[in-house]
C-alpha cells in the first residue's frame, strides 16, 4: 500500500532514536570522577580493605589537582576506595560541598581557612598560629585537620621582570609608585582580604583596577601586557622561568599557607588509623622543591597530574 512507506520511516526514526538513547545510557557509567580501589592479592590484607568508600574533592587549579591525586592514589595503594571529584571550585564552593556532605575531605590551605573561611578577624603572626586557629575552627564544625605539609603556597603579586626594573618595584608597597594600575587574578580575589581587599587596606593601593581572569590565564595575560600585575601562587611552575618578579609581601597580607587535609571526623574514625597515617606520610614528603617540580611538570611540561602524582609516589615507595 502506498501509505505504509512513510509509516515505516516514522517508526524507523523513532526506534533509532530510542535505541541510541538507551544504548548510550546503559553504556555510560558515572563518568567524570575516578573510582578505584587499590591492588589486591598481597600476603597481608591492606588496611583499607573493607573500609567504606570516601569521596575526596580538589579545587580548581593545577596544584590542587596534584594534591588530590597524591592523596587519593596513596590511599588507594593501601586498599582504600577513593572517589576523586576534581576541579570542584574555589574555597567557598568546595567548603560548601564539604559541609553539605557531597565530599568527605579535601586539601585546603591553613591561611585560607583562617582568614577567608573562618573569617577570624586578626592576622596570625606565624604558620603555627595559623594552623592552630584553622584547626580549632574546623574542629568546632566537626572536621579534623591533619598534619600540614612542609611547603607553603601563598598568593602573591607578580609583574614582568622588565616592568619591575623599569619602575623600581621590589615590594608590594612599591606599587603605590604606579598610581593607577591593573591587577588580574581569579574572580574571588576581588572580595578577599588575601586579595584586592587586603591590598587596599594594608598597602593603601586604592587605585587598583581589578580584572577578573580565570585561574591559570593570568600568566598569558601578563605576557601579552594586557595587565600590569597578576595574582600568582608562590609555588607556580611558571615562576621558575625568571621572567617574573614576585613582589615581597612585607605586610604579610597573604598569610601563612601550609596545606592540610580537612576530613570529616566521623569519616576519619570509620576509616581507621592507617588512613590518617597514609595522608600524613604523603604530606611529609611535600617539600617546596617537590611541589614546585611537580607544578612545573603539570603547568609547563603539560604532564597529566595523575601521572605526575603516580611517578612521585612510586619513587617514594607509596604507590
Amino acid at each position, binding site marked *: 500500500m502506498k*501509505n505504509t512507506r*512513510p*509509516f515505516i*520511516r*516514522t517508526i*524507523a*526514526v523513532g526506534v533509532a*532514536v*530510542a535505541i*541510541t*538513547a538507551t544504548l*548510550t*545510557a546503559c*553504556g*555510560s557509567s*558515572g*563518568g*567524570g*570522577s575516578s573510582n578505584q580501589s587499590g591492588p589486591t592479592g598481597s600476603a597481608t590484607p591492606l*588496611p583499607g580493605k573493607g573500609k567504606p568508600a570516601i569521596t575526596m574533592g580538589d579545587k*580548581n*587549579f*593545577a596544584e590542587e*589537582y596534584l594534591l588530590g591525586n597524591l592523596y587519593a592514589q596513596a590511599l588507594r*595503594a*593501601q586498599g582504600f576506595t577513593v572517589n576523586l*571529584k*576534581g*576541579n*570542584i571550585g574555589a574555597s567557598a564552593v568546595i567548603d560548601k*560541598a564539604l559541609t553539605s556532605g*557531597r565530599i568527605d575531605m579535601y586539601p585546603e590551605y591553613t591561611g585560607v581557612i583562617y582568614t577567608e573561611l573562618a573569617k577570624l578577624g586578626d592576622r596570625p603572626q606565624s604558620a603555627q598560629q595559623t594552623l592552630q586557629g584553622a584547626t580549632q575552627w574546623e574542629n568546632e564544625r566537626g572536621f579534623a585537620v591533619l598534619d600540614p605539609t612542609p611547603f607553603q603556597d601563598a598568593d602573591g603579586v607578580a609583574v614582568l621582570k622588565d616592568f619591575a626594573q623599569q619602575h623600581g618595584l621590589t615590594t608590594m608597597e612599591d606599587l603605590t609608585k604606579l598610581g593607577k594600575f591593573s591587577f588580574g587574578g581569579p574572580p574571588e580575589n576581588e572580595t578577599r582580604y588575601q586579595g584586592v581587599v587586603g591590598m587596599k587596606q594594608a598597602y593603601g593601593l586604592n587605585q587598583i583596577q581589578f580584572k577578573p581572569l*580565570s*585561574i*591559570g*590565564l593570568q*600568566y*598569558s595575560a601578563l605576557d601579552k601586557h594586557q595587565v600590569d600585575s597578576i595574582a600568582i601562587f608562590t609555588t607556580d*611552575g611558571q615562576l621558575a622561568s625568571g621572567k617574573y618578579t614576585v613582589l615581597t609581601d612585607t605586610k604579610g597580607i597573604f598569610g601563612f599557607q601550609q596545606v592540610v587535609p580537612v576530613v570529616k571526623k566521623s569519616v576519619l574514625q570509620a576509616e581507621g588509623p592507617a588512613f590518617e597515617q597514609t595522608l600524613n606520610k604523603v604530606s611529609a*614528603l*611535600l*617539600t617546596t*622543591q*617537590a611541589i614546585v*617540580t*611537580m607544578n612545573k*611538570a603539570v*603547568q*609547563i*611540561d*603539560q*604532564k*597529566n597530574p595523575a*601521572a*605526575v602524582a603516580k*611517578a*612521585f609516589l612510586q*619513587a*617514594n*615507595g607509596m604507590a
Partner: protein
Amino acid sequence: MYFLAPAADSGGPVIPNFGKTSSCVLDNKTFCWDWFRSNWGSTFEPALIQHIELTAIAVGIGFVIAFTLAITAHRARWMVTPVTLLGSLLYTIPSLAAFEILVSITGINWYTVEIALVSYTLLILFTNILAGLSSISPEVLDAAHGIGLTSRQTLIRVELPLALPTIIAGLRVAVVTIISLATVAAYIMPTGLGKPIFDAIASGGFNTKFIGAGVMCIALALVADGLFVVLQRILTPWAAARRGV
C-alpha cells in the same frame, strides 16, 4: 610496614624525572601536533566519546518528553502557550548559571548535566514537532477521515510521516545546540570536550588543548549537522521532489 621510608641520605623526598618535553610544548606554541597525537587516547578521545554520549542522551530524553507534549498539545491547543513559555524560560537561562544552580540541588554528576541539557532541548523540539504537525493541510486530514482512518491511525500513518521533515529539522537544531552547551558542562564536572578547555584554563593556558578540543568540537557539530541533512534527504524523498531537486 606498608611502605618504604624515603631515602635517608637526601633528607627529603625522591623527586623523579617526569619525562622530556618538546620545545613546542615548552614554548606553548599555537598547536603541538605531536602532543595532540600522543595524548589523543588519554585526553581527547575520551572527551569526544563522553561528549557524544552526553548529547545523545540529552536529545533522546528531550525528544521523548517533547514528543509526548507536542502530540498532546496538538489536540489540546490550550497547552501550547504555557509549554512554550516554560520552554522559552528554560532556554533563556544562561547555561553557566543553570549548571551552577543545579549543582546545589542535584550534586556533581551526570544527572545534573543531563537535566540542564534536556531542558534546553525542550523548546526547540516541542516547537518543531508541533509546527510539523500543524502544517499539514486540512484537506489531507479530511481525506484520511474520508477513507475511514481513526484519529490515532491518522496520527501514525499520515500526520507523523508528513511532519517528519520538520521533526528532523528540529532534531538537527537540538543536536547542534546541545553539542555546544555540553562543552559548558565541564565547568562543574570534568566531562566532555569542555574538559580539556577548562583544564587548560586552570593549568596556565596550554594552547594545544584549546585548539585541539575547540576544533574537535566544531568538527563534531558540523558532522552532526551534515548527517541530519543527509538523513532528511533519505527519509523524505517526496519533499525532495517538491523541492525540484
